């Protein structure tokens, strides 16, 4: 400092002179405010600096309580902190208080104070100094604001981090919705939140897409409904505008009274609408409801009816959340779609397996309906076209508690009565009917009466698919699958699955119907071609049995025949046309007719074989056959037998059984042999029994024919009877099970004494 000259010759003396200050002046004009108060705060002394700073004359300050000069916050802090501290520790330092100036403006101060006590320790006076701290407090506020902003920013990025990590673990759409709703609600301290997905209107007549709530927390159903209503038509616009705040104000009250009412009822002051999008595709909206009491039931610091302003940083956070939500929803949707595809594939595989095993149509459709409601649908109804018209062999509901409704549909409410019903239309038009949205109008149109309508309503169906069963151009029936309102609506993929299922089922039904027709025809034919029961012949007791195969629709060309000839002669035959179908049965019919015609000339058994062999091609018979032809003289017991590739007959005499050594000739239908057929001749003794049979009897339990013949012989001996009926019953009981692969013809005759 260049001051030596200015101060003069004796700087020390000059300094001393300057420092000889008037204590009163030093007090009054000190560079800080001075105050002395009584213990209750009443000001008893104040300096000019304080008065100048606050613009208050001395006489307006004296006698006033110090705390009354403070801002409200300062008053409370003074009461709760400063006074207790002074009492307890005798002094306070650097307390930040705002003194109110006479013009109402605030003077930020830092206050130091001491409590002066008497000898007994009783407070008598408080001395305080006040330093103006405007700049410092401004700086501190800025610091604090910056710190708060940093904390909020950190909180936002923490929110975002948690959202991202939680979303990574969210596999289903439900999980995604839960994460987004929970986090956004906490981040914005919102009263409620909902994630809503835009869904193409199930009703094609409407252009406006609908909103489906994926998750709702703390928002009323009425509010969401009002929002739906308000959103229709404007939704697309809303989505384009980015994050939007909808305050509950006069404008909203006049434009959207329902929405405003629902917001008021829910104690909301504003809604925040956040677009949810992925790759610029708009998927839905996140709705947040703001206002009302803050968490913990504390009074909101915002004045009632003051819509909260969403800060730009919050808008940015919400925007990011919306995009995160969109991407996660897409990912979850794809994931779910993949899972559903796997489910569908598994379903079709299981259905195919089930259908491949199918033996009985009614049982098959029942099991198929059961399978359908286990995964694909809530309700499955299968109708089949039969000779008697449309029947409904299966109607299953996923929920056993609602099965009774399905039962009513099956037993009482057939669709053919109602031509508008999708199942009836599917059959009529031969095309899949996909009803995307079932509403009251639809139900009224497709039900036949009030009772039917009630059942349909009780099922609470949301959508349904009816697929016709078509095979070889014939419409065989219809499969109807329905989803109720708790299930995700059917998609095109579900329709495809239903169609594949219907295709498979149609083939099975067609095949079954064909088999059924064949079987019925064959049996009718066979029954008509075989003699109902053998005629009574003097000197003989006879019994016949004919058993059809039990598996599938196989019908054999087995036959037996017993005809009295002239005198006491009887012609007996047993045979088996190859194959198990109508052709076999028809061939058998022809064969037996020709055989009977041949009997007119009374030929020997071997001659019958030769003649049949010779005329087989002329007769146009398409199948080969085995047969055993016999003639028997009931009076003498003379027996002659010839075999065309047939199993030998069994002779049972006095408890002993043997197969007669008839030499088999070629089968009928093979090229004629140059050598004539051989013939066995012998006597059937009195009381002896002859048993003729087809291979079904001995092949029933074992594929080994010799083993089967051995069983037959043992069984015949064990029967211990020569009564043909008793013997037949015993043999069938012993040798055949409940399941027969082939038809059985059995003929027994006993020569009576």
């Amino acid at each position, binding site marked *: 400092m260049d001051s030596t000259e200015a101060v003069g010759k004796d700087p020390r003396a000059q300094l001393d002179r300057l420092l000889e200050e008037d204590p009163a002046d030093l007090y009054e004009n000190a560079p800080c405010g001075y105050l002395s108060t009584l213990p209750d705060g009443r000001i008893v002394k104040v300096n000019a600096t304080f008065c100048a700073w606050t613009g208050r004359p001395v006489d307006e300050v004296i006698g006033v309580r110090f*705390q009354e000069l403070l801002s409200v916050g300062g008053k409370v802090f003074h009461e709760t902190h400063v006074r207790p501290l002074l*009492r307890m520790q005798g002094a*306070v*330092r650097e307390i930040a208080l*705002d003194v109110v100036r006479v013009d109402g403006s605030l003077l930020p101060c830092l206050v130091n104070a001491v409590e002066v006590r008497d000898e007994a320790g009783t407070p008598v006076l408080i001395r305080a100094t006040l330093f103006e701290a405007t700049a410092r407090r401004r700086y*501190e506020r800025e610091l604090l604001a910056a710190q708060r902003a940093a904390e909020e920013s950190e909180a936002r990025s923490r929110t975002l981090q948690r959202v991202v990590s939680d979303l990574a673990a969210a596999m289903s759409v439900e999980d995604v919705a839960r994460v987004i709703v929970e986090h956004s609600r906490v981040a914005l301290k919102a009263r409620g939140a909902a994630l809503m997905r835009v869904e193409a209107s199930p009703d094609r007549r409407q252009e406006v897409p609908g909103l489906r709530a994926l998750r709702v927390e703390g928002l009323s159903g009425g509010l969401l409904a009002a929002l739906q209503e308000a959103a229709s038509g404007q939704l697309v616009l809303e989505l384009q505008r980015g994050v939007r705040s909808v305050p509950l104000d006069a404008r909203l009250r006049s434009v959207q009274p329902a929405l405003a009412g629902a917001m008021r009822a829910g104690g909301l002051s504003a809604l925040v609408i956040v677009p949810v999008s992925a790759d610029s595709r708009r998927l839905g909206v996140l709705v947040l409801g703001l206002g009302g009491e803050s968490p913990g039931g504390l009074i909101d610091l*915002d004045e009632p009816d003051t819509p909260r302003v969403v800060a730009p940083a919050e808008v940015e956070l919400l925007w990011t959340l919306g995009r995160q939500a969109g991407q996660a929803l897409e990912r979850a949707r794809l994931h779910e779609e993949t899972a559903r595809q796997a489910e569908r594939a598994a379903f079709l595989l299981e259905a195919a397996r089930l259908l491949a095993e199918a033996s009985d149509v009614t049982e098959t459709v029942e099991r198929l309906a059961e399978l359908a409601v286990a995964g694909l649908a809530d309700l499955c109804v299968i109708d089949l076209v039969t000779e008697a018209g449309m029947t409904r062999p299966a109607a299953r509901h996923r929920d056993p508690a609602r099965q009774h409704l399905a039962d009513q549909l099956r037993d009482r409410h057939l669709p053919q009565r109602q031509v508008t019903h999708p199942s009836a239309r599917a059959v009529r038009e031969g095309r899949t009917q996909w009803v995307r949205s079932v509403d009251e109008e639809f139900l009224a149109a497709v039900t036949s009466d009030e009772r039917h309508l009630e059942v349909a309503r009780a099922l609470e169906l949301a959508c349904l698919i009816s697929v016709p069963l078509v095979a070889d151009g014939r419409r065989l029936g219809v499969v109807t699958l329905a989803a109720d309102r708790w299930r995700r609506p059917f998609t095109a993929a579900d329709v495809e699955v239903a169609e594949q299922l219907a295709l498979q089922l149609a083939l099975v039904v067609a095949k079954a119907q064909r088999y059924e027709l064949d079987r019925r025809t064959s049996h009718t034919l066979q029954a008509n071609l075989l003699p109902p029961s053998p005629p009574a012949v003097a000197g003989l007791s006879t019994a016949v049995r004919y058993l059809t195969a039990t598996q599938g629709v196989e019908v054999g060309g087995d036959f037996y025949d017993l005809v009295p000839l002239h005198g006491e002669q009887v012609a007996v035959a047993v045979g088996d046309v190859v194959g198990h179908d109508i052709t076999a049965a028809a061939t058998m019919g022809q064969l037996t007719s020709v055989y009977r015609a041949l009997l007119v000339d009374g030929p020997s058994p071997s001659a019958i074989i030769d003649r049949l062999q010779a005329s087989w091609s002329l007769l146009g018979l398409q199948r080969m056959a085995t047969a055993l032809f016999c003639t028997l003289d009931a009076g003498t017991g003379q027996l002659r037998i010839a075999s065309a590739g047939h199993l030998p007959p069994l002779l049972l005499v006095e408890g002993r059984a043997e197969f007669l050594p008839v030499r088999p000739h070629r089968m009928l239908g093979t090229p004629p042999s140059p050598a004539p057929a051989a013939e066995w001749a012998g006597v059937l003794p009195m009381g002896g029994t002859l048993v003729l049979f087809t291979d079904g009897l001995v092949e029933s339990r074992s594929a080994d024919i010799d083993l089967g013949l051995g069983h037959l012989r043992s069984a015949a001996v064990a029967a211990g009877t020569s009564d043909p009926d008793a013997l037949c019953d015993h043999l069938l009981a012993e040798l055949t099970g409940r399941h027969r692969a082939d038809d059985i013809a059995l003929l027994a005759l006993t020569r009576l004494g």
Partner: protein
Amino acid sequence: MVFAHGFGCDQRMWRFVAPDFEVDHRVVLFDHVGSGHSEPSAYDPVKYGSLHGYASDVVEICRDLGLSDVVFVGHSVSAMMGVLALQQAPELFGALVMVGPNPRYVDDGDYVGGFTRSDIVGLLEALDSNHLGWSRQMASVIMGNPDRPELTEELTNSFCRTDPDIARQFARVTFLSDNRGDLPGVKVPTLILQCSDDVIAPDVVGTYVHGQIPGSVLTRLDAVGHCPHLSAPEETTAAIRAFLSG
């Protein structure tokens, strides 16, 4: 007798009053979690997000100590905690002394609580301004070493220091609660001590509380301000004694 300190400092607020009752009462003093020498880690922002959390601590203290027929003396916000503790465990309490109670600080229609919302905002700012020098390290020094007073001597204003975040939330819970509806449920003899010129609990509020609690006694003190137990301990003690013997 259980003395509960209010918003601001800690149990030492009762130092001029509580000893007087030790002659004929078992006196229990405690610091609310988040204040004084309480364990900082015990602070749970959710539990202490409402006065019920604090009230359940009061009940827990009484039960752990096996107290019965408790005279609960609550200053300021603790008076309301006493009302809630009575709700939670009525069998524990015999009488309630409310020192400067205010069931709702924020004015509401015709109800005068003494504060507007912007007043509370200003209060929170005032708190923030006085907590800037605070650091968490200090919190552990002050709150974690109660038996080494030499550490705390260095610190100014140490009696009322607390973690600013906790102080802020305690202030919010104190000044933004509304417990008016709980008052008529108080069924024990109740004394309301009303100070003169109390900005935090104005006379009109004390009168309101008196009107809401059936059979309560309202005693007006000459003591000025919000802390009569510090500024006028003799008067406060005498009023409580008069009530207890009456």
